[in-house]
């Protein structure tokens, strides 16, 4: 009854192909956008919560990129962290050394990452599956080594470059709240860009490659071009995310983009749901929020319910969180292997017929 489709008739091709055809969906979208824009204003003083939101938003952009490659094109990639590093350092070099404004840095970071991503995507023409995953692992390590050892790129012995807060026409983004809005703009662009991409011709080619690449080639999809394009687009997203991280932290440091980060993004995408843009965001929220939530919950339960103070069990608690994290991932995948997006679909499907059951 709530998610009703009856009574909604489309009278044009445009309406039929719209991303959100139902009026309910349109209303929900509008409310969500309004919430995204207005709620943080109420949180203005709470830097802690805003920093968490910022982290989630940044992670989502990277996760969406990885989902395009992994979920829609079926190429497993373990190099997302490295491509983010490429974007981050490009932006840092341009801003810190040549004084370019931040929007230029972000675009350039994304483009550079796209180039590098396409380069490391070339092996995908011959190699598939786990072999490809390990080839992308090679990308991760090679890029890390390059940044570390080439001073022109890495900025010297410390392999990190400081940048100033981004500024636009005299307006400086130097509080968490302002940075939030900056990141929000890019997040929305990334999200809706991806939604449109996967429903376009290019997106259909990606899905064809994922499902049956030999058949796709037979019907005329140029596999070479589209695979490289998938790598390039995914790395563009990664580069933009990396550049934004650099501007957010005001430092480009490759240690923020290690293999562990790549694995983290892979986790986000898989838990969130492969082949779903919304899934990437949900996965990012889940993975980024979980350690913090565990941290806060377990410690406060321990203190208030059991009276155990932090220092006595600090070692235990920290590792307990890691264990719970891993166990939740396993449990989650056993229960719903297709991720959070599928769970959300199930919820929507339920409400389609509610309060009737069939």
């Amino acid at each position, binding site marked *: 009854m709530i998610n009703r489709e009856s009574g909604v008739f489309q009278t044009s091709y445009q309406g039929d192909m719209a991303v959100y055809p139902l009026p309910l969906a349109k209303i929900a979208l509008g409310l969500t956008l309004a919430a995204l824009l207005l709620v943080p204003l109420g949180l203005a003083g709470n830097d802690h919560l805003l920093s968490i939101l910022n982290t989630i938003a940044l992670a989502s952009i990277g996760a969406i990129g990885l989902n395009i490659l992994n979920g829609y094109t079926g190429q*497993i990639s373990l190099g997302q962290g490295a491509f983010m590093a490429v974007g981050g350092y490009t932006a840092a070099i341009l801003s810190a050394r040549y004084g370019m404004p931040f929007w230029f840095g972000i675009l350039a970071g994304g483009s550079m990452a796209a180039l590098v991503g396409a380069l490391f995507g070339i092996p995908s023409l011959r190699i598939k599956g786990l*072999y490809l995953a390990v*080839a992308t692992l*090679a990308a991760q390590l090679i890029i890390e080594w390059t940044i570390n050892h080439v001073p022109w790129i890495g900025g010297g012995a410390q392999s990190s470059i400081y940048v100033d807060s981004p500024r636009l026409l005299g307006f400086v983004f130097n509080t968490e709240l302002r940075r939030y809005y900056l990141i929000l703009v890019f997040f929305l662009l990334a999200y809706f860009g991806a939604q449109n991409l996967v429903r376009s011709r290019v997106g259909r080619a990606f899905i064809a490659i994922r499902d049956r690449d030999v058949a796709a080639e037979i019907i005329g999809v140029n596999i070479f071009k589209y695979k490289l394009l998938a790598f390039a687009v995914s790395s563009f997203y990664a580069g933009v995310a990396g550049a934004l991280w650099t501007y957010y932290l005001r430092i480009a440091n490759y240690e923020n983009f290690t293999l562990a980060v790549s694995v983290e993004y892979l986790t986000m995408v898989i838990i969130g749901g492969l082949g779903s843009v919304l899934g990437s965001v949900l996965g990012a929220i889940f993975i980024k929020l979980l350690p913090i939530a565990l941290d806060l919950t377990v410690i406060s339960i321990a203190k208030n319910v059991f009276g155990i103070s932090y220092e006595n069990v600090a070692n235990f608690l920290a*590792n307990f969180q890691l264990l719970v994290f*891993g166990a*939740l991932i*396993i449990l989650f995948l056993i229960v719903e292997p297709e991720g959070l997006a599928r769970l959300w679909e199930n919820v929507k499907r339920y409400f389609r017929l509610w309060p009737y059951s069939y």
Partner: protein
Amino acid sequence: MAFFLDLITNGLLVGLMYSLVAVGFVLIYKATSIMNFAQGDLVMFAGYIAAVMLGLKGMPIWLMVILLCAGMVLLGFVLERGILRPMVGQPLVSVIMVTIGLSFVLQGLVTIIWGGSTRELPLPVRVAPYTLGPALISPINLVAALIALLFLLAFGLFFTRSRLGVAMRAVADDQQASMIVGIRVSRVFALSWAIAGLAAAAGGIIWGNMLGVDRLLALVGLKVFPVVILGGLDSIGGAIVGGLIMGAVESVASGYLDPYVGGGTKDFIPYVLMILVLFIKPHGFFGHETIERV
């Protein structure tokens, strides 16, 4: 020249130890088509059990080895039953993710149970080297290589001569046909995980002694990937050859290239080599060429 010899011998010995861990990975993949990203963590877990047991007073080494092997075999069975059985038929990526989750669980578990400090795993082998002319031979490296070699030979014999081994190879080849012939596929799955646990036990003892036992021991699992790719994901012989090549190349390359590029080549040279090999042979040296059907 002496330097080169040193590097090569050292590299080959280390390579054998890589092979040991890689064999565990390949075993599971061959039988069940699951890529076990937690192999390194199994090695770490075995290392912890070994270190803790050796720490108990009066524990003779042979008893520790027997108990450790039994324990790891049991762990393999439990993991297969509890975690991997429900994931049969799920998409590949989800299964990989489950093994990654498993690695987090194992890492958190060992630290909770046994604390965060690094433990030693003392073996009754002396560390100081024997001099043999211009060459220095380190007894611990030799012993480690010997243990690895023994295990690998044992595996080889098992797979070629024993009934169970042949059954495993049959399942790896064609599951449906094996079921028709009467092989209990689920038992083979469990067995493959158990043997992988055994390989992890051997790896745990050796690597635990070389590196000290703590959570970072799981990182040897990372080295597994270039080795199995080089050798072919489903070939045990390939794992051995791949390990030897990797070890040798790593050692020699970093010994000669490092001074020119400021160090650190050891990390990515194996991967560069691997990519080059993959271009020529997309399934590794001895991997099974899959024929795709539309």
